[in-house]
């Protein structure tokens, strides 16, 4: 559409899940603030990484962004379409250009459907074929793109290995000719040797079709490999966002620093001499997140101000955003 606008614009996206109490008469007693006001853009053809520990809200962010969960507040624009206000034809169009690859290749494919039904469902929903022969041909073409033999078209998911199933998930996501794909931990259920296969496939497809990815993951080494820019989430908010090498070489937020130093390096001499910042305690509950900076109870640098004032989201270096009083 517009060459100068980013493909995806997210402003103050918020998703709260109500906490209910009572069996007959239910009342709302609080909210899980899973995503609490996050903003970022993704340029056309770029891969943005979204990293954080379990429960930080990264998956909820990905799903809310696509409208799979109704957002509590905020604006998401994908290719000029406002996802929250889109209805009818416009919603269908958003669903066609924005797709998702799920984490668990075992749970995200219907076990009673053949590969043909799974991969051709988006074609059916979006009326992308005229004849049955055309549909079969397109499914076989998609299978070829992800490295599966077209002869397997009538097989069921249980006949495939984990890596092959994830390829089926990728083929399904590609079926509707999307421009933007949310990859929600697409490799974390796979073995190391298979992870590399799927990552290389995602990179090839990106080059070939000019795809834009939001890559949600907790594997920080893989994120550095595949992403152009990386956003770090903690308890529902983004605490730091920068180009990958800038972020990994000069992390500014104390949480990013601790997170990166915790990642083991497959090099014994180096791993044993690395300085590790071991964080005390666990991530607090997102139902009543800590006041001020959400990281302050675990932060080695925190002082009184951090527990009172929410740090401002600001530009600390060229294209390096951070929310911390101490930077």
């Amino acid at each position, binding site marked *: 559409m517009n060459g100068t606008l980013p493909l995806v614009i997210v402003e103050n996206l918020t998703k709260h899940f109500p906490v209910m109490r009572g069996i007959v008469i239910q009342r709302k007693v609080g909210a899980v603030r899973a995503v609490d006001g996050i903003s970022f853009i993704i340029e056309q053809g770029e891969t943005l990484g979204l990293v954080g*520990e*379990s429960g930080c809200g990264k998956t909820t962010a990905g799903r809310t962004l696509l409208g799979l969960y109704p957002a509590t507040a905020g604006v998401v624009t994908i290719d000029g379409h406002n996802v929250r206000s889109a209805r009818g034809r416009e919603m269908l169009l958003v669903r066609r250009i924005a797709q998702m690859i799920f984490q668990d290749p075992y749970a995200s494919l219907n076990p009673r459907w053949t590969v043909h039904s799974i991969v051709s469902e988006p074609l059916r929903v979006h009326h992308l074929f005229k004849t049955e022969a055309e549909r079969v041909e397109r499914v076989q073409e998609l299978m070829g793109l992800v490295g599966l033999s077209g002869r397997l078209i009538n097989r069921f998911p249980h006949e495939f*290995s984990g*890596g*092959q199933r994830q390829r089926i998930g990728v083929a399904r996501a590609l079926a509707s000719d999307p421009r933007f794909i949310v990859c929600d931990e697409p490799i974390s259920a796979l*073995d*190391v*040797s*298979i*992870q*590399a*296969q799927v*990552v*290389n496939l995602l*990179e090839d497809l990106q080059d070939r079709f000019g795809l834009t990815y939001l890559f949600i993951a*907790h594997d*920080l*080494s*893989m994120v*550095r*490999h*595949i992403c152009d820019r990386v956003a770090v989430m903690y308890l529902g908010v983004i605490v730091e966002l920068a180009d*990958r*090498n800038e972020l*990994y070489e000069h992390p500014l937020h104390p949480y990013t620093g*601790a*997170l*990166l*130093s*915790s*990642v*083991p*390096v*497959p*090099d*014994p*001499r*180096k*791993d*044993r001499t*690395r300085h*590790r910042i*071991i*964080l005390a305690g*666990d*991530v607090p509950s997102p139902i009543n997140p800590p006041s001020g900076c959400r990281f302050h109870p675990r932060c080695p640098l925190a002082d009184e101000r951090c527990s009172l004032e929410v740090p401002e989201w600001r530009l600390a270096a060229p294209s390096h955003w951070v929310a911390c009083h101490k930077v």
Partner: protein
Amino acid sequence: MTTLLDVKDLKTRFHTPEGTVYAVNGISFHVDEGETLAVVGESGCGKSVSMMSVLQLILVPPGEIAGGKVIYRGQDLLKKTEQEMESIRGKEVAMIFQDPMTSLNPVLTIGRQICESLRTHLGLDQKAAEKRAVELLELVGISDPANRLGDFPHQFSGGMRQRVMIAMALSCNPSLLIADEPTTALDVTIQAQIVELVTKIRNTVHMAVIWITHDLGVVAGIADRVMVMYAGFIVEEAGVIDLYENPCHPYTSALLGALPRVDRRRDRRLKSIPGAPPSLLMEPHGCPFSTRCEVAVERCKSENPSLTPVGKNHHNIACWIDIKTGVAR
């Protein structure tokens, strides 16, 4: 150094409706006292099953330990009765598991669960057991341990539950701790805490550790020696620095090539290993990795190489080919 555990030609099979699963196919290895051995491999390579066979935790049937010897301090554990094994498990050899939620009993307080092994193995009375339990929880870094004895597992977070599991495992001062993917279910910051804890304890009480994992990063930080498993075989065995700096089996070298690095800029595409591990439903013949191997020759398909030394330093590999030169060894 004296050998604590010496496993010879261990074979484990499972007889399932689909056929016999050849899970562990004649592996031999040893662990010295106070040493940390890491067992690395992908899912289904037999790393957990082989260690569970050592402790006879395999359910028979469908499982079957089809052969081999497990010599622990001069005695063959495979010849022991179930009753004799009960006095070894938990006391001499302790084990911690991947999922700390399902390995703790949800309806008993953690105090009761820790005290149980103290009372059965060490014959302590309730009071002494509780006192020791508090010391153990303190050792693994749980704050206010005396008050937390009455808590149930669901009141602890994942990392804290794994600490409780470690406290239970350490309760009888075992000589060998088998840790089966203890940090796989945890976040990296919590993983760093647990790795630091186990390293600290191992250094203070001089306990041998077998650390089962698929994460080559964690291995680099904790192991003295590493063995790499594939499809029920050991394919390479070496000291940790030797293995990472000079991997000699094509599988090990390919695995290391498939790993991105958090501490380096991207310099290449990842090297992927084509295909998938072989089905274990067929009796293995030939090298199990030959179907995915870049350097495989005709001989690899028909004859399975046994572990043989390469160079010095007790570096063993099971491969017909020298990957540096590409010719037969």
